[in-house]
């Protein structure tokens, strides 16, 4: 199993701050989510962090057991 973490407004879309999912290719993981949630996660302004490291490229991600993938929408102004 792997963990998805939803930050900011993505938390409201998901209805929770994190979710445990089956490990595997990210596209398979996303396809199993609610369509509005997977659409929101794939917004081009959303950044990904895998196990605490920001990813520059969002292609070819495969979640291994124990991985934590965070979805980071643009931060709020102040």
């Amino acid at each position, binding site marked *: 199993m792997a963990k998805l973490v939803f930050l900011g407004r993505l938390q409201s879309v998901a209805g929770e701050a994190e979710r445990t999912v089956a490990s595997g290719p990210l596209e398979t993981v996303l396809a199993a989510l609610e369509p509005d949630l997977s659409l929101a996660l794939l917004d081009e302004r959303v950044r990904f962090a895998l196990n*605490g490291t920001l990813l520059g490229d969002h292609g070819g991600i495969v979640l291994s057991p124990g991985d934590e993938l965070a979805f980071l929408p*643009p931060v709020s*102004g102040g």
Partner: protein
Amino acid sequence: MIDVRLLDRPFIPGAFIGAFTHAHPGLGGVCTFVGEVRSEDGVEALELSHYAPLTLPGMQALAQRAAGRFDLMGILILHRTGVLHPGEPIVCVSAAATHRRAAFDAVDFAMDHLKSDSWFWKREKRGGEWHWIEPRAEDHADKARWD
């Protein structure tokens, strides 16, 4: 001295600034900015969420950049998380330097970058309902002053 903290409950800036100042005896001056939650537009509360693996390390990197760019004896960056109410301090940046200009510029620089570059997401409660706050173009313009 570089001192960077995320605080999850109300804090008194003076308690941190006093200790920070005493850690640098004989400095020229200390510039401090304390930002508070504004009591306007019917905002009842503000909630700041962060992502632990990125937020504090990002603030520490910012403090290092400020210390490297300006001639400082030390810099203090405090930021609240969690639910805040109008009037509560949300951010405190303090810089100690031999010369006033360096202390001023370092605080200004850190504030501009904290607002646009830090991993915080905010939502505010109005009329009993929470609303996410979107990014503002203005913050990016503030940050661009330093490029």
